[in-house]
């Protein structure tokens, strides 16, 4: 099984449509290339996208034909679940199941973590962690987890991050929560707060 969160496909289109600057329109391509590589490497039979897969519903609708075909190709022979996110709440005209959340006892997959729940896998916050090493502070996307939940970092190319010591994240996670900082070799550490 491969779980990814916050792909934000079509971000360039959404920003442009709203009168913003024309960013390089390559983020969908870049995100899909990485997804394809990870699918090949993991040979996952099931893919769960934890929401905000598209930057908005309109961006999903206007996705260029080549990218739609690409996604269909990736979906072939796999179970694929789109969880709804705050950016893409509506149904999307693409293959795969569309769900508000996916219960898979004892786990629940949803976009935004809910305080008080447990067994929860979610995204939304784009968590990152800052490690103060002896020579330099290094900040990277990170997984956060405790006995109740896992919060995944954003997978999309055009995404920023929210630091683990932000009140929103610090309040959600148990005091003994851990983080895994991404990189060549992912490393585990107590979640900085």
């Amino acid at each position, binding site marked *: 099984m491969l779980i990814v969160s916050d792909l934000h496909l079509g971000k*360039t*289109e959404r920003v*442009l*449509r709203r*009168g*913003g*600057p*024309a*960013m*390089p*329109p*390559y*983020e969908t*391509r*870049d995100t899909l290339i990485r997804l394809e590589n990870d699918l090949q490497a993991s040979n996952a039979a099931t893919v769960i996208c934890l929401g905000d897969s598209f930057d908005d519903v309109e961006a999903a609708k206007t996705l*260029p034909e080549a990218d739609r075909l690409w996604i269909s190709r990736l979906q072939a022979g796999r179970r694929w679940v789109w969880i709804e996110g705050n950016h893409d709440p509506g149904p999307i005209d693409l293959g795969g199941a569309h769900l508000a959340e996916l219960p898979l006892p004892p786990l629940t997959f949803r976009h935004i973590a809910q305080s008080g729940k447990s067994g929860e896998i979610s995204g939304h*916050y*784009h968590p990152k962690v800052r*490690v*103060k*090493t*002896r*020579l*330099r*502070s*290094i900040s990277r996307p990170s997984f956060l987890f405790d006995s109740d939940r896992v919060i995944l970092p*954003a997978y999309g*190319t*055009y*995404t*920023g*991050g*929210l630091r683990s010591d*932000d009140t929103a994240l610090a309040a959600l996670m148990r005091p003994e929560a*851990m983080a895994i*900082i991404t*990189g*060549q*070799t992912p*490393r*585990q*550490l*107590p979640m900085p707060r």
Partner: protein
Amino acid sequence: MLARADDPCTLLIAPTGGGKTLAGFLPTLADLATMPHEGLHTLYVSPLKALAADIKRNLRAPVEEIGLDIRIEGRTGDTSQTVKKRQRVDPPHILLTTPESLALLTSYEDAPRIFKGLKRVVVDEIHALAESKRGDQLFLALARLQSLRPGLKRVGLSATVDHPEDIAKLLARNPDPCEILYADPGPAPDISMLETEEAPPWLGGGAAYAIPAVLEQVKAHKTTLIFHNTRAQAEIFFHNLWLSNDESLPIGIHHGSLDRAQREKVEAAMVRGNLRAIVCTGSLDLGIDWGDVDLVIQVGAPKNVKRLVQRIGRANHRYNAPSKALLVPANRWEVVECVNALKAVQEGDLDGDPRGSGPRDVLCQHILLRAASGPFDADDLYAEMTSAGAYVDLTRDAFDTCLEFCATGGYALKAYDRWQRLQQRPDGQWQLRDPRAAARLRMNAGTIQDSDTLKVQLKRNRGGKPLGEVEEAFAATLSAGDTFLIGGQIVRYEGLRDMTVQVSRNAARKPRVAVFSGTKFSTSTQLSQRTLRYLQADSWPDLPAHTADWLQLQRSMSRLPEPGRLLVETFERDGRQNMCVYGFAGRNAQQTLGLLLTKRMEDMDLAPMGFVSSDYATLIWGLDEVVDPRPLFDLQTLKAGLDGWLAGNALMKRTFRGAATIAGLIERNTPSARKSGRQATFSSDILYDTLLKYDPDHVLMQITREEALRGLVDFSRIEALLENVQDRIDHVTAPHVTPLAAPLLLEVGKVPVQSGSAEERLIAEETEALMNESGLTKV
């Protein structure tokens, strides 16, 4: 000036204090006195907000004396929205403004009406503008004004410069002539080095040792200005000065990070003559009427002789008395630099490098702002732009590429053309697709690159008084209880609230230091070569004994750099391995060398982490010791690694961020935007990496390369340096930091090396330590 009132363009070169600003206004006052005028008559543009306010005060006096009914108003970033709106409807006779505010003013649909009566424009401190993108933006705005008002007369006011004809070319509409007038330069300034009983330290930029001597000077003069090269240094010095100020002399502090109300208070006190001394940085550097300033003190080496002379020139308003200035070196190396700078001043050896043609990111912004003011014809705009001196050489192709960038983004992948920013109408004119975008474009106008800053204020229950701002990166390092200096007082960090740094006053004597971005000055190559020759002497009788001894110590502990040889020192300090390379090639060449060497070190698995360059050396640090530096300098290998190396480094990404912001690809981080969605904004590095991968020839990548290379030297210069050296590389392994390497530890402008291997090792080391500390075994 009056005799030349009808010339299209005049440049006046005069030292400050010669009343040159008033001279610039003479034709305006004469004209307004003889003929009643409706609306805007003269536009005055200066690089500094404070200067506009100052001119307003000074101009009022003669105007009232003659009894003229002239309205004079300022318009800067500090002007209120209400006043700005009113000025557009009912402009004053004389409007005092900055390049940024002028660019904005020309971007309104009613620009033709605002500038309807405009006859003259006066550009003050044009020598300072000529060196920057702010100048490029201004000259493009002048081209636009000239289209609106073909009879517009231009006057430029400049301090003494090496090549006034270059500035004249920028000022004039191409190909109009521009006459250059020279005022009497007055007597040469009286500059010397401050003698102190105590020796300056090896390392340090604060000049704390000189506090008693500086206080004595303040007491002996009416008003003293104490200049520093960085804001952080000004803060520390001011703090120390107050600790020793037993007589409670009125001394103030002024720099660009302080709250506006605070700055205005200091400016007003200075005008009234209530202050005995002001500790300041470049924010007071330009042209302000300094009243009775009779002494200028420069703390830290003047990195640039021309700048030094211009600064000192301000000190004196009595035209026939020499202005008086003292240099206070902050460390021993700066003593050597000061001695050589003084010799250069005596010999009239002004430095300064010529600047190439105007950068295209400014061009892109101008096109977008032009579109905000209404539809335009591409041919007309091209003709208008090439009438600006900096853009005379702009080809139609280059212009079209910029226009395409503004319209669609100009990407190789034409994905979303229906949303393009600019559209061509059936009649061929270009206009904004969405007229609402105009407001958004105006918000992002300007060419000054601020690093993101956060406001600092006292906690609400302690009055909520705004104190100034600090860089976001510095704020991120603070934890509750940390103390730092701002506006001369020590404050305690309490927390972050609504993107404002909340602090309380604190009585601690030793603060952590606020890190403000320091201005990077570059010495000319002449000054560093002069210094290298100077080091060859057997002894230095003109140096104070402490500094001569210090150089002798360098000689015995390591060696002194020599022409035709290359000295390389390696030493360990604070857990990092350092390598110092003394090329004396000027900052740009040393910077290039730093990039090349760290790339080489990465290839050799030496885990370099960063480097910093001064005019005489490059200091590189990393995790592993360089046992034998000689192979690093192999010309063939350095050259072979050249292709592609430049693309991925931090310097390029930094340059890209600046160019992309000016060209309108990245919107400025407004406080409200940051508040609403921090996880939604992402680093400009991602955009850079994406372009590098999928569209490496995109116009912004071209601009970035051009710009980065402007600040670097081409490989032939490095080649010449290393060929001159051949195998005469002297490697010294020192037990600790050497006298000559010490000043580099504090140099501003450190460039991080984003080497994967070093960061992976550091993360592994730190996470392991954290896991052990918390009693958790590795999973």
